[in-house]
């Protein structure tokens, strides 16, 4: 039993041994790399900031994001009201404070983004493992499902599903995940195709391991690093898709502040109040940029081959 495990986690162990000989642990090394790479550090700062907003928005939002008053609608950034409160990023068409709404909007973006990554990862990794390991007819069926999901105009289908089922958080997450599991399935399938020929897998099979055990104990841990890389690189895209759906009017319904919904509000005032559409977009872009930069860094740390292949 012990022997099996050692073999199963062989790649990681090799890395640890190397690291121990230099008396620096793997995480420490990764952290040092991160600090030496300004783009990754910038990405980390962006993500950490937005994450903090999402966890404790009350501490950063100066005002109530839902508090509306027509007396102060469409005020420019930096406007100060009679009570001396400053609206740093201005107000929207209903007089709500944009800064507070941007801060609170991070909740929906991040929670939908992370939840879709988890759901689509779960579906994709499972189908990828199954398709790669069993091959044959099962693989062909899953491949045709992938082709079908790729052919469907995704945003339109997601919109229609949400419109029919109702705009709840779960339905939005499911509608997005319906398409995005494909990436995970493809990556995992490809890896399993080569992994299943390796000795530690054929050995495990020869020793009488059940199929489920081979999949869960021997293959799954070995595909997790690349899954994690894909997940980070796609988190940004999920956040953009959620914002697109909110922009198109099928996201989490108002008055809940969402970045996409704010952009949609601002669209009607592009010529008179540019700040409504400008600031949520900037924050959205910086969030996605931050996630992408972190993803690039993670790819270099976890999968040096991928980096070499891409260079």
């Amino acid at each position, binding site marked *: 039993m012990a022997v099996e495990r050692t073999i199963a986690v062989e790649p990681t162990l090799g890395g640890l041994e190397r690291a121990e000989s230099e008396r620096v642990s793997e995480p420490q090394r990764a952290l040092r790399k991160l600090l030496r790479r300004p783009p990754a550090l910038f990405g980390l700062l962006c993500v950490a900031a937005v994450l903090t907003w999402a966890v404790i928005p009350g501490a950063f939002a100066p005002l109530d994001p839902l508090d509306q008053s027509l007396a102060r609608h469409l005020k420019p950034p930096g406007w100060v009201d009679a009570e001396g409160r400053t609206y740093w990023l201005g107000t929207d068409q209903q007089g709500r404070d944009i800064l507070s709404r941007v801060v609170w909007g991070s909740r929906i973006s991040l929670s939908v983004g992370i939840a879709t990554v988890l759901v689509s990862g779960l579906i994709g990794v499972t189908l990828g493992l199954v398709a790669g390991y069993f091959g044959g007819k099962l693989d062909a069926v899953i491949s045709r499902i992938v082709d079908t999901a790729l052919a469907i105009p995704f945003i339109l289908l997601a919109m229609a599903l949400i*419109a029919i089922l109702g705009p709840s958080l779960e339905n939005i997450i499911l509608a997005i995940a319906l398409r995005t599991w494909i990436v995970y399935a493809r990556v995992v399938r490809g890896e399993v195709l080569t992994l299943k020929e390796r000795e530690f897998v054929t050995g495990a099979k020869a020793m009488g391991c059940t199929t489920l055990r081979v999949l869960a104990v021997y293959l799954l841990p070995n595909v997790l690093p690349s899954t994690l890389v894909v997940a980070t690189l796609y988190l940004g895209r999920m956040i953009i898709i959620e914002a697109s759906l909110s922009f198109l009017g099928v996201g989490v319904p108002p008055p809940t502040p969402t970045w996409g919904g704010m952009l949609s509000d601002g669209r009607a005032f592009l010529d008179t109040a540019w700040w409504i559409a400008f600031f949520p977009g900037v924050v959205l*872009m910086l969030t996605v940029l931050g996630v992408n930069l972190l993803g690039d860094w993670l790819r270099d740390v976890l999968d040096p081959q991928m980096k070499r292949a891409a260079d």
Partner: protein
Amino acid sequence: MRAYIFRSLLQSLIVLNGVLLIVFLMLHLTGDPAGVLMPVDATEEDLARFRRDMGFDQPLHVQYVYFLFGHGERNRGVLRGDFGFSYRHEVPAMGLVVEHIPATVYLAVIALLVALAIAIPAGILSAVFRNTWIDHLASVVSMFGQSLPNFWMGLMLIIVFAVYLRWLPTSGYEGPEHVVLPALTAGLYATARIMRMMRSTLLEVMGLDFVRTARAKGLGESAVIGRHALKNAAIPVVTLVGLELGLLLSGTVVTEVVFAWPGVGFLTVDAIVNQDYPVVQAAVTLLAMMYIGVNLTVDVTYAWLDPRISYR
């Protein structure tokens, strides 16, 4: 070769059937397609008659056959192009969608051309001047391009070029000046992807033996790249360009909404908001068919271009 084309064709048909099944099941998600299709204020009798007319009282697999091949006088089946009537426009849904296709194809093609015009030179430059400031600048721009929500970029382009500079119109379809901003917006992600692909394939090719041979026999750098490397780097890029066109045909939805561009996406978003589902079904099916068609063409062309391809 013939077997390969035949198999690609067969796979396309299987995928098309999958698409039709999803489009069919879409209305059955709530368990009551009549409730989804009929207006909210329809009476119970209206609903009952509608269910009978449409065959919604039949088992699901029978309904799918009706959906494909038609049922009664009013429904000729989607295989004959009958998706029913648009409730809002009171014309056949299929015809309505077909009318809006040229605008979408026009936007997708121009967006792809704009993307190519930017991405190919930029990709070549950053590969040739690898690890110089040109390369770094290109990679920073492409990183931003991938992180930018394209509809937000569209809004910002409107603020700058239409509202403040007044160079270009905010929406509309008539003249060439109308397509500039939508094409830039729709082509954003394609630009970033083609550029990275151009750079990496060119770098890969430039490391190969025949390029070294070309250099060794004394060819100038521009001849080595122009005559030898670029030609061999072209195949993967051409494939990607084909795939990007397939993506763009259904990927212009948000752009069309931002610029009120009268394409299929704009029509369909409007139809979804107004619960005009026959139009949604027709649009999803037609866009999927176009995607499948483009991909089939890419597959066959690729096999024809590169004799080394294995016809698994």
